[in-house]
């Protein structure tokens, strides 16, 4: 193990507009934040400027943790590498055939371009059966010939995708070794290494996407690492994964597919920590962006992981990710009246460019942000993100009149209120989706808006969904950067077992567990960072024979001196019965219990910092400015407070606005805000 280093920990989140920096001095426990414009096309400029702006001497930094959207953007914009595929005879088209789905339930238009061109997908003689038997040994000459051809044609990366490689990787492993021996770069991905799990499309897609992202993401990370090194940085550089844990930059370069939701995941991690520290372990986070509203639920301090996601139609990634539900309703979503006379919000969006009408960049259809501007909720003299010195309130009002007010027979302000009511109702629907629909009672949960726009809608969402309270972190705009500093180190593993409980080979299962445990510990050992604790968690995907939806069953596993003691079949059976009963209410007497996959996670708990260091100092009284703000049917003379200057313990009754450079918090009539000892703003309905 390398020597531990202490010093400053730096979290960096690169967004579309700003690069956010969060710095924690481990020795003093003091934190600071910074924000610089994101540089394009090479983000490393802003990245480095942001860090040196806070810590001029990079040698004083122990750890830099980065939440990146490089992978997400490459996927959404289809800007990954040209990749080749070498696959089993007869299976060339699996990536293009998907699981026989279609983009939308209603309407049959639309086609699909796979990430690997059909010309670059080559078949070789080889076949493994489902029980692991080798039916046809792999023809390595054919593999080498295929790889040579792909190289010649200009493929930068290659994915090796063999049938049933989860059951026996022998053929695939031989093929990948042969390819690596001749491939000119490290961008070679094999399906049994990326995801040794049954279901060929999901495994192939995840592996191919890994290859697709590898040149871009590893190149980007490499540039950052070099720039940091040239600046004198000698600490650990780590990347946030979609599962909310961090990994070494080398791992991220090998497994870039794990960074698909890196940026948003970091935000959720920080939100969970802030809420739990403030005394609210049950929290729902909401990030309102230009085009979307992202919601995630944390119960008892635990983020929810989903086993797979589709970044876009046909781009499936199967890898544990923090569950984030997205709907197309954000500040830039356009309001319109349909032919049946009903007010609709989105899905069309003006995004951040041209953005809302009030930005004056050419859009003339009203957005959610325009409604907020017209009602006085956003300060037109201090625009965030726009390029004007003053927002164009009149243009926003005219657009609302034309497209919503006139068709519905409403005045400007009533129409703007209507836009917000429908938009809030759609966002409330997303919150219900992650809470009520999954059996969580929203009354138990606090709502935490982050990103710039969320805090405008907080009171409305609380009222609509019935949430107990909201908690607005002190620096909502840098939540993701803070999450980078807080996140634990984590590695997930999966192995398909596919056995009946009655005939389970417990020793073989124990061997898989041991293997996962050892690999995870080795990763923690190699990290030059400090851990408060280490954990290994083992789960089995189980169901009754004949059922296809499995339940995740946590199994008790005893690890002594690095030796994993696998559970007995009886213990597994009991754990399944408990979980199944809790999920579905009743067991199925006589049903045969089946184990599909083993899932393991090895976690290194990183030291946490004291959020109180962020709290405001002193108790300066302030005389608020005042502005007319529209609520319900009337204008209210509303005080505007400088949020960051409010002392701990301050109580502000609604209506009020708390303003800070990148966030506006709206306290509606009937709600009260108070500042807790960490500097968070807690909003609750007034008790009447």
């Amino acid at each position, binding site marked *: 193990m390398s020597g531990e280093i202490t010093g400053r920990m730096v979290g960096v989140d690169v967004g579309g507009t700003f690069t956010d920096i969060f710095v924690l001095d481990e020795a003093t426990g003091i934190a600071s934040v910074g924000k610089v414009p994101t540089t394009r096309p090479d983000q490393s400029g802003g990245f480095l400027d942001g860090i040196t702006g806070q810590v001029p001497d990079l040698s004083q930094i122990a750890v830099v943790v980065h939440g990146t959207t490089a992978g997400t953007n490459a996927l959404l914009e289809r800007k990954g590498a040209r990749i080749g595929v070498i696959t089993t005879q007869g299976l060339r088209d699996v990536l293009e055939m998907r699981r*026989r789905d279609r983009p939308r339930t209603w309407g049959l238009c639309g086609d699909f371009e796979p990430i690997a061109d059909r010309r670059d997908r080559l078949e070789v003689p080889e076949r493994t059966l489902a029980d692991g038997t080798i039916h046809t040994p792999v023809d390595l000459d054919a593999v080498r010939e295929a790889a040579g051809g792909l190289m010649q044609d200009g493929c930068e990366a290659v994915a090796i995708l063999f049938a049933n490689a989860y059951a026996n990787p022998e053929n695939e492993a031989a093929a990948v070794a042969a390819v690596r021996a001749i491939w000119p770069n490290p961008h070679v991905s094999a399906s049994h290494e990326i995801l040794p799990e049954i279901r060929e*499309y999901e495994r192939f897609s995840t592996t191919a996407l890994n290859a697709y992202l590898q040149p871009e993401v590893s190149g980007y990370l490499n540039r950052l690492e070099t720039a940091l090194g040239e600046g004198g940085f000698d600490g650990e550089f780590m990347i946030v994964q979609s599962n909310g844990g961090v990994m070494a930059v080398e791992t991220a370069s090998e497994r870039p597919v794990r960074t698909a939701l890196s940026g948003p995941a970091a935000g959720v991690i920080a939100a969970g920590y802030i809420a739990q520290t403030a005394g609210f372990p049950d929290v729902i986070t909401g990030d309102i962006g230009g085009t979307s509203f992202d919601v995630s639920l944390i119960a008892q301090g635990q983020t929810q992981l989903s086993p797979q996601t589709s970044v876009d139609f046909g781009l499936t990634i199967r890898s544990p990710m923090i569950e984030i539900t997205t709907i197309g309703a954000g500040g830039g979503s356009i309001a319109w009246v349909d032919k049946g006379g*009903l007010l609709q919000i989105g899905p069309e969006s003006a995004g951040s460019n041209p953005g809302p009408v009030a930005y004056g960049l050419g859009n003339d259809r009203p957005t959610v942000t325009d409604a907020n501007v017209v009602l006085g909720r956003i300060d037109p003299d201090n625009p965030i993100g726009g390029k004007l010195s003053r927002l164009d309130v009149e243009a926003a009002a005219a657009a609302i009149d034309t497209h919503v007010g006139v068709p519905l027979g409403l005045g400007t302000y009533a129409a703007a209120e*209507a836009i917000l009511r429908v938009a809030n109702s759609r966002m409330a629907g997303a919150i219900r*989706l992650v809470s009520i629909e999954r059996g969580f009672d929203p009354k138990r949960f606090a709502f935490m808006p982050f990103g710039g726009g969320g805090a405008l809608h907080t009171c409305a969402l609380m009222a609509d969904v019935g949430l107990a309270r909201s908690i607005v972190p002190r620096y909502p705009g840098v939540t993701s950067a803070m999450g980078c500093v807080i996140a634990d180190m984590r590695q997930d593993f999966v192995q398909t077992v596919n056995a009946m409980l009655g005939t389970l080979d417990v020793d073989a299962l124990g061997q898989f567990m041991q293997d996962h445990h050892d690999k995870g510990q080795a990763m923690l050992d190699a990290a030059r960072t400090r851990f408060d604790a280490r954990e290994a968690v083992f789960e089995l995907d189980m169901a009754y024979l004949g059922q296809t939806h499995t339940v995740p069953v946590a199994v008790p596993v005893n690890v002594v001196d690095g030796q994993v003691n696998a559970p007995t079949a009886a213990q597994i059976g009991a754990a399944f019965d408990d979980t199944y009963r809790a999920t579905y209410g009743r067991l199925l007497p006589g049903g045969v219990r089946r184990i599909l996959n083993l899932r393991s996670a090895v976690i290194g708990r990183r030291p946490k910092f004291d959020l109180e260091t962020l709290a405001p100092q002193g108790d300066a009284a302030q005389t608020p400015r005042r502005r007319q703000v529209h609520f319900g049917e009337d204008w209210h003379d509303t005080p505007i407070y400088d949020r960051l200057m409010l002392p701990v313990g301050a109580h502000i009754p609604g209506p009020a606005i708390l303003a800070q450079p990148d966030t506006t918090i709206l306290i509606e009539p009937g709600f009260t805000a108070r500042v807790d000892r960490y500097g968070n703003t807690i909003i609750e309905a007034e008790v009447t």
Partner: protein
Amino acid sequence: MTEIDPITLAVLSGRMEQIADEMDATLFRAAFNPIIAEAHDASHGIYHAQTGDTLVQGKSGLPIFVGVMAFAVQAVIEKAAADGDLEDGDIYAFNDAHIGGTHLSDMRLVQPYFRDGELFCYLASVGHWHDVGGAVPGNYNPAATDVFQEAFVLPPVKLARKGVVQQDIVDIMLRNTRLPLSAQGDLNGQLGALELGVKRMDALLDEYGTDTIRAALGALSDRAETLMQAELSALPDGRWEAEDFLDNDGISPEALPIRVALEIAGDRMVLDFAGTAPQCAGPVNIARPTAVATAYVAIKHIFAGLPANSGVMRPIEVRIPDDSLLSAEFPAPTGGYTETILRMIDVIFSAMALAAPDRVVANAYGTINALSIAGKRSDGRPWVMFSFYGGGHGGSIESDGLNHGNAPISTATIPPMEILEAAYPVMFRQWALRPDSGGAGRHRGGLGAIYEIEVLEENGAEAFLFGERGRFAPKGVAGGGDAAVNVFGFEHDEGWGTPPMVSKMRGIKLRQGQAVRLETPGGGGYGPPGERDADAVGLDVVRGLVSEEQADRDYPGWQEDQG
């Protein structure tokens, strides 16, 4: 009646859709059989207390049920009126397809929802059970000549009285299936979905009040009607006709015509199926409710932005002639209803393409290819591998058709090859796109697939296929070409054979090491092939999606025009 403002209506519309969606999700999670759990062959909704009309329907359920469930609820309304004993907490169950549409595999549960002692609306749940008795496991019997050879028939009966499930009814249901554990699991899931629906409706009515919700439900249907009228008004007036054929009924080889005349006048439309074949002996008949619901599915695909409730059908008259394949009488067999309704959708699309070519896509592959391979393992345990297979979608004004999609009546995904190979003694020699299967056109039809499946079990196996489009190809629209037909072959000791009924066959004997091979149709092309960009043809050829020979036939001179 309470007036309702459009803003509250927009809010309530989302809330009620969410209730139906949540009922769908509950059943998908809890269901025991993969046809519901994976293929989502189920649906839930809220229905009118007096007419049974669909008021709100879940987004994730099977499209065909959106229209057909209203008939199931109407059947219960009639039954309850005749018996005069409808009470709070009652739940009716039945699978009779001649009353409720589709086929006998679909178990329907219908529950009256009461508010303050008064009937407010109905909630319903339908799901495709794995097996409901009859001659063939899984109930796709291509040679059935009446319903009794397909499954056991349950008319609407009270499964629950005043909130108490009647165990004797459950016992009858479970004694009439080969898979009682699966059936019990699915039934529990459907009861759970209804329970949840009641709870959510209670909460919604508590929050907004009975009058507001009643007004909202009425207004939502009116609004859907207005939307449909606006769409129809924008289309030209006139009358357009289209016809297509089913290969056969599985019993005799004659082709069966399906014809439609589509007439638009102002804001109204008539779909008249006069001239369609009469009721046939085999299982490609459908009952009248299924036919009407199918028209709804086609309309919803053409006008994809419209809400899912019965209001959209008010401006549309669907004329189904008596004594027709589309209005079969009890006990005519209806197990293969999917093939017939897919062809109805095809002719509606083809006719609409004449009226408004920019609004429709060309025909999709048009058959579900229900293939089962069954046998006994060496230890005597029986196995049945049953699945539906995919094909290409039609080209559209926007783009080429989708390769390997699911049928327009369904949102089901296909089980992974590795899951099938792990569960059954088979090996897929090929799972690939089928070159030259998409219809030529400015926008080419999507490609169908090739699946070649070898039996590994030393005892051999037997195969059954229920398919269509073996003789009549999916059609192009707006000048686009037709796709390739469905081709099925099986290996025997002398080589490869094909079924006498083209794409329907039972009892195909396979030895260990022998295979069946399914080559599914693509989708039809959109627009004249001469208008296709020569570079796009060139790309198709180098990608191997279209052979050079086929390109020469469909796009003469394409090589010279390369950019």
